[in-house]
């Protein structure tokens, strides 16, 4: 960022009721604060109390989101299964091409099998859980590359 950019930023907020601009570059962060009277505050903030064991997946999911990929999250708390039964092959593997709506996994809760469907056409980029893993509500299970 050059002095001229800063100048431009200052001119930008002059006469507006913006009182603070914060800018970062690594991992992009911006923070604009309006005066208390007007008070709308933009804050891009990550989940502050991330469950430790879900962090890696969350990070993966964020990267996915940033790079235009699609993350398929668990709609329920339960046990993840990658195949219809232990003796059968997984629904999908990394590299499998999938259609939107296609069953790609199962989350079992109280003997109820919740099928997990692909959210988009594309290629399975990552499978974030192993067969039998416990999963929480909202945890990412798969990353699909719609462009793949």
């Amino acid at each position, binding site marked *: 960022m050059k002095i001229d950019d800063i100048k431009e930023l200052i001119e930008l907020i002059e006469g507006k009721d913006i009182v603070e601009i914060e800018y970062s570059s690594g991992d992009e962060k911006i923070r604009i604060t309006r005066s208390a009277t007007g008070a709308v505050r933009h804050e891009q903030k990550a*989940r*502050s*109390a*991330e*469950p430790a064991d*879900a962090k890696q997946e969350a990070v993966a999911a964020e990267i996915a989101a940033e790079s235009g990929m699609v993350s398929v999250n668990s709609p*329920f*708390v*339960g*046990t993840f299964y990658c195949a219809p039964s232990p003796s059968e092959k997984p629904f999908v593997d990394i590299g499998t091409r999938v259609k939107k709506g296609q069953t790609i996994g199962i989350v079992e*809760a*109280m003997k*109820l099998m919740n099928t997990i469907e692909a959210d988009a056409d594309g290629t399975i980029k990552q499978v974030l859980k192993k067969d039998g893993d*416990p*999963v*929480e*509500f*909202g*945890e990412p299970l798969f990353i699909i590359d719609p462009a793949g």
Partner: protein
Amino acid sequence: MFSKVLVANRGEIAIRIIRALRELGIRSVAVYSTADEAAMHTRLADEKVCIGPAQSKSSYLNAPALISAAQIKGADAIHPGYGFLSEDPGFAEVCEQAGLKFIGPKPQDIELMGNKLKAREYVDGLGIQVLPGTFQEIEDEQHAIRTAKDIGLPLIVKAAEGGGGRGMKIIYDEDQIPNIIKIARSEAKSAFGNASLYIEKYFEFVRHIEIQIIGDGNGGVVALGERECSIQRRHQKFIEEAPSVAVDDKLRNRMNDTAVRIARHIGYRGPGTIEFLLDEKGKFYFMEMNTRLQVEHPVTELVTGLDIVAEQIRIAGGEKMTMSQRDIRVKGHAIECRINAEDPQTLVPSAGKITTYLQPGGPWVRVDGHAYPGYDVPPYYDSLVAKLIVWADDRDRSIRRMQRALDEFVIEGIKTNIPLHKKILASKDFLLGNITTRFIDKFI
């Protein structure tokens, strides 16, 4: 005894239970919705699981999600707290079917007392004085009008599956009956899934006095004395104290005995509360029974020195009850103020970020809360952010200690009802103990 318990609740009561579990050497699992990711109960538990989105219906009221969460975490019991699924006999049953101990009464007892109309009938059958009113569901307007003629106005219309102050309407005038019955029926249907109504005589200037009991599930029951819960707004308790200025030893013994008789007859398990209305002449009427831990249990804990939550968990875990009626001594006086995130004038809930949070401390001041500096109070749930409870050796000192603690309590960023508590505590009628269920009206 259990090795791991899932706490199917949020907020201060989840924390209260997690604290008891930790003190008992039992691992705890917190559950949370996506709106509660930064909630304090998730930090204090040993483990935690996200069970659904912000809406209670899909998270804290989502029985399959709770049981599934307990299963993936390997918990052997579920504590429901209060509210949410705590008085749902179906949930209690599903827990037991899933091999998870439900830390609460037996499902059939929850069911019996959950239908307030059936409970009236049951208690009346024991020869105990219940509030004058109907023993059958109100069939139609005519039924209600006949009742009005029988027992006189004003009346209060309640939902059979309601309770805890919810779903009530007062009738002052016979002309209002048709309209109120219609509205009450449709509200009961949508709020409790059951349109059944019943009618009781409405006493305006009475006290709400309740007796805390604990049962061992086999007919052993001890009574821990009364709580004075007359200070209510919109039928919701606001300030509770123990003991009550209106209850002397003789009356206390009679109320204790009555409560014990009901609980013993049921074979009730764990802590429960029998609610009575007490009139000016010292006559008391059974109103309803709450088959769960109550918000205001700490006042009883502080005057008896007994840990009600630990005892509840021990009883559910199969241990013998450690209390006996002979050992129960009520000492001193305790008050609880419910600190809600709400506008003190309009009582509208006030969600948002808490910028400053200074908790009172010092001698005999207890805070059961879940707020902290920087905590963002979500708009989805109950507005209770902390219970402030004090003990002192008599009521006057207890009131002054509460005033001191309220003065110390600083919560900025959201509105709270602290100013209203201060006003009530400073009022002459409160000091004199001249309180009824209509007390708060003049302050709002």
